[in-house]
């Protein structure tokens, strides 16, 4: 009996794409937060740490997705995810990255500010995150609505 040759053609998987988008989006959010002084979103308060960390996430995720194992010469030149699938997965990955950033930065904010209270409560929207964590900002917004 002739041996059946199985040809496997590696393609970009949805999971790989999601991990790439998630990591790159966390990096972009950290970079923008550092640039616009949205301290409530930062994992590292000091810019000297925040900038390299965000760039490491962005460059690292691109390297992992495109460069490792010569992927740009192999799987990247094969048909992979459809355009609509890419868009949907990008939204999912970026949304997950946003939730992760809000949760982690809020947790860090809570640990940092134990017992402290913010006096400047006039800002609104994203500007609120210049002075407090996301959790504190949303809590303040809904508290002031009840008052």
């Amino acid at each position, binding site marked *: 009996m002739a041996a059946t040759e199985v040809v496997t053609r590696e393609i970009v998987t949805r999971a790989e794409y999601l991990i*790439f988008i998630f990591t790159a989006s966390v990096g*972009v959010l950290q970079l923008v937060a550092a640039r*616009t002084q949205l301290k409530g979103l930062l994992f590292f308060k000091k810019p000297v740490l925040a900038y390299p960390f965000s760039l490491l996430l962005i460059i690292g995720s691109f390297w992992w997705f495109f460069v490792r194992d010569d992927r*740009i010469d192999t799987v*990247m*030149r*094969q048909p*992979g995810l459809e355009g609509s699938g890419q868009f949907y997965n990008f939204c999912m990955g970026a949304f997950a990255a946003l939730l992760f950033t809000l949760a982690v930065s809020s947790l860090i904010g809570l640990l940092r500010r134990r017992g402290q209270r913010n006096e400047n409560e006039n800002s609104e929207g994203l500007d609120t995150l210049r002075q407090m964590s996301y959790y504190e900002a949303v809590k303040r917004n809904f508290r002031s609505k009840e008052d």
Partner: protein
Amino acid sequence: MTGIDERIILWINDLVGKSAALDRIMIWLASDYFIPVTISLILLAIWFLGQGTAERENYQRAVICAFITIGFTSGFILAANHIYSHPHPFEALPELKATIAQIFYEIHDPAFPSNTAAVTFGAAAGLWQKNRKLGYLMLIPAVLMPLSKIYAAVYWPSDIVAGAVLAILTSFLISWVVMPLAEPMIGGLIKVMRKLCLA
């Protein structure tokens, strides 16, 4: 048009294989993921950029306009593909088969109008409608990806021009008609996002 298309594509494809560095750059730019993800990440960043409420709201409206433009343009491309189609350069000119294998892969989507150009120019033109500076910035990746697809013999230059023109015209439709009609929804969305400290 076919004669001009052929002359341009053969002239550009003559460069393939001459410089390893140029081929490498084109492989990256033509990739299905590199430029689309870069553009999407830039749009994500723009949402959170801006100093002060007014500037940030302008940026966020620009991002919304870009997204709606991309969505509508993609719909128009699908419709156009049903009306007219012609072969890709690598199908019409067999000598280009080697070129595409070096840079990209043989796609099966219709060639005219180019959906690559439609999406990248849709992002740039959508942003431009609300913020000229951001629009011009986005024009860089918007031009590079379609250019690399011509280099790879995936699209004819006229496919790219048609996709870009369609995207630009759609951005005017979105900015002048759709955005004003959808203003209660867009204004409401920004208000809710601001309440949630995300805008």
